[in-house]
C-alpha cells in the first residue's frame, strides 16, 4: 500500500496508536480520548479485525464499530454492545486480571514515565486542579500493557519532577516494582520508549528535528542511535480515518487550544444534528 503524503499530525498519531494494536486483544478506552478511539478503530479496519473493545463510555464490551461522535458518542458503544457491565464489576473483577491495553493521556509526565492527572502545583494549594485520575492509579502498578500519549508536546507536560504521581512509570529506587512500565509514549512530535529506563526517542515525525524535541522536553532526552522518521500512514489508512472512522474530524479536538475548540465544537454539534449526516451513517 502506498504511503500517504497528505496527512495531519492527528492522522499520524492515530496511525501510531493503531500500529500498537495486535489482533485479538482487548482494548480499553477512557473518556474524552478520540485520538485513541480513532486509532483503535483504524486497527480494527486494517490489521486487527478481531479486537474487542472495553469502553468506559457505556460500560460495555463491543466488537462492532461505528464512526466517532461527540454528542452521539454513546451510539458508538451502547448501540453495538455485546454485553453491559457495571463499573464496579469492571474495576474489581476484570481489570486486575484481564489487563486490557490502554492509552493514557498525562497532564504531566516525568523521565521515567510516571505521570500526573490530579493537580498542577502543590496538591493542597494547586495552581490548577485537574479532573482526577479515574482508574490510572489503580492499574498502572501492575498492567503489562500501559501506553501513554501526549497531543501537545511541551515543557509544561514533560517535566523533571511531577507535582503528584497518580500513574506509575518504569520501576525506580523511589518507586520499585516488577511492572514493565509504559511500553511507548506517542506525542505530536515523535514516538518514545522506556527500554533504557528513561524516556528515549525512537522516531520523530515528519518535519520535526531532534533538536526541537529536546527544546520542548523539560528533562534530558535519551535518543535511540537508530532513531528515524516515523513511518507515514498509508493512503488507505488516511481514507479510512477521513471517510469511515471519523468524517467529522473529532480526533482533531484533542490538539486544539481552548479558544479553537469551542467554536469548532459548536460546529460539530450542528453537524451531528443535521439530518443528512445522521442518515449518512445509519
Amino acid at each position, binding site marked *: 500500500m502506498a504511503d500517504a503524503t497528505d496527512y495531519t499530525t492527528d492522522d499520524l498519531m492515530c496511525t501510531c496508536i493503531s500500529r500498537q494494536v495486535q489482533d485479538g486483544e482487548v482494548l480499553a478506552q477512557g473518556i474524552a480520548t478520540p485520538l485513541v478511539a480513532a486509532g483503535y478503530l483504524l486497527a480494527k479496519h486494517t490489521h486487527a479485525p478481531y479486537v474487542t473493545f472495553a469502553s468506559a463510555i457505556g460500560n460495555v464490551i463491543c466488537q462492532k464499530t461505528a464512526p466517532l461522535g461527540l454528542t452521539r458518542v454513546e451510539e458508538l458503544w*451502547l448501540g453495538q454492545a455485546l454485553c453491559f457491565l457495571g463499573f464496579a464489576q469492571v474495576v474489581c473483577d476484570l481489570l486486575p486480571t484481564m489487563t486490557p491495553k490502554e492509552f493514557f493521556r498525562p497532564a504531566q509526565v516525568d523521565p521515567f514515565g510516571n505521570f500526573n492527572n490530579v493537580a498542577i502545583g502543590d496538591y493542597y494549594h494547586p495552581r490548577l486542579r485537574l479532573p482526577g485520575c479515574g482508574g490510572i492509579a489503580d492499574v498502572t502498578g501492575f498492567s503489562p500493557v500501559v501506553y501513554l500519549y501526549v497531543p501537545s508536546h511541551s515543557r509544561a507536560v514533560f517535566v523533571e519532577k511531577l507535582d503528584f504521581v497518580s500513574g506509575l512509570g518504569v520501576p525506580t529506587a523511589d518507586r*520499585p516494582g516488577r511492572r514493565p512500565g509504559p511500553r511507548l509514549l506517542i506525542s505530536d512530535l515523535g514516538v518514545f520508549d522506556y527500554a533504557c529506563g528513561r524516556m528515549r526517542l525512537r522516531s520523530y515525525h515528519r518535519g520535526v528535528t531532534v533538536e526541537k524535541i529536546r527544546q520542548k522536553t523539560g528533562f534530558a532526552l535519551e535518543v535511540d542511535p537508530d532513531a528515524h522518521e516515523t513511518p507515514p500512514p498509508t493512503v488507505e489508512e488516511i481514507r479510512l480515518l477521513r471517510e469511515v472512522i471519523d468524517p467529522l474530524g473529532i480526533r482533531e479536538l484533542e490538539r486544539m487550544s481552548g479558544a479553537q475548540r469551542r467554536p469548532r465544537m459548536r460546529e460539530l454539534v450542528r453537524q451531528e444534528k443535521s439530518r443528512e449526516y445522521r442518515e449518512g451513517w445509519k
Partner: protein
Amino acid sequence: MNKVLSLDQAVSRVRSGCTLGLGGMTLYRRPVAFVRALLRTDVTDLTLLALTCGYESDLLVGAGRVRRLRTCYFGLEGFGLAPMFTQRATAGEVEIVEETEASLAFGLRARLAGVGFMPSLAWLGTDLPKVRPDVKLVTDPYSGREYTAFPALHVDVAAIHALEADRLGNARLIGNLGLDQELAAVADQVIVTAERVVEELSGPLELPGFPVTGVVEVPHGARPTSCYPDYGLDGDELLNYIDACSAGEFDAYLGQLLSSP
C-alpha cells in the same frame, strides 16, 4: 405498595450535611432534574459521592452547596473541564477526598459485603496514599503481600435517573451503569427519577425495586445529559453553560435554570 413521589417530596429526603450519591456517569443519564429541584431548597453542606461528576455536580459546586467531594473524575468529558469545580477546587473552596475507580468500587462493595474494607492492588506506589492517610494497608494472611485496604463507604441518599421505572421502583437503566446498582444497594434512601413511570415493568431489568424508597416521573429528567436511547447529549446547552461560566455568569445561568419550569 406505591413508592411514587413528587420531585419536591423526593428531594426533601436530602438533609444538609448528608452524603448524596449521584447515579449515571460523566454526561450520561445524570439525575439533573433531581439536582435542579434540590437547588430550589436550602440544603447545603453536602458530601457528594459519584463515580464521576459532570454538569449536575458542577451546578451544586457552583451554587456552594457542596462541602466535600468524593469522585474519581470531575469534568465535562469531550467538552472540557467542569468550570465551577475547576475554579472552586483550585481556590481550595471545596474539600476533596481523593478517590479513584477502585477506592469507590471496592468501598461500596465492602459495605455491600458487610465488612470494613476490601483489599486491592490499586494505589500501591503512587502518591494517592499520601493524601488519603485514612486508607491503610493490609497484609494478606496467606502470601504476606501488602494490599490497599479500601474502607467501606456509606451513602445517605442516592439519586438515580432511569429510562423507565414502575411504582415499586423496579427500573430499566440500559447502559452506562456506573455504580448505580451498588449505590442503590447501600444507600439509606434511594430515589429513582424516570422518563416514565408505569404500573408494572417486566424483566430483565438492571435495578430491582426493593431498595428503592421513592420513584418520580420526570420526562427529560437527565437533560442536557443523555438518556439512551430516548435522547442524546444536548451539546448546545453544555456549550452555553461553559460560555456562561467563562464569562463569570454562573449565578445568572443558575437563576435562569431554576426559574424555568
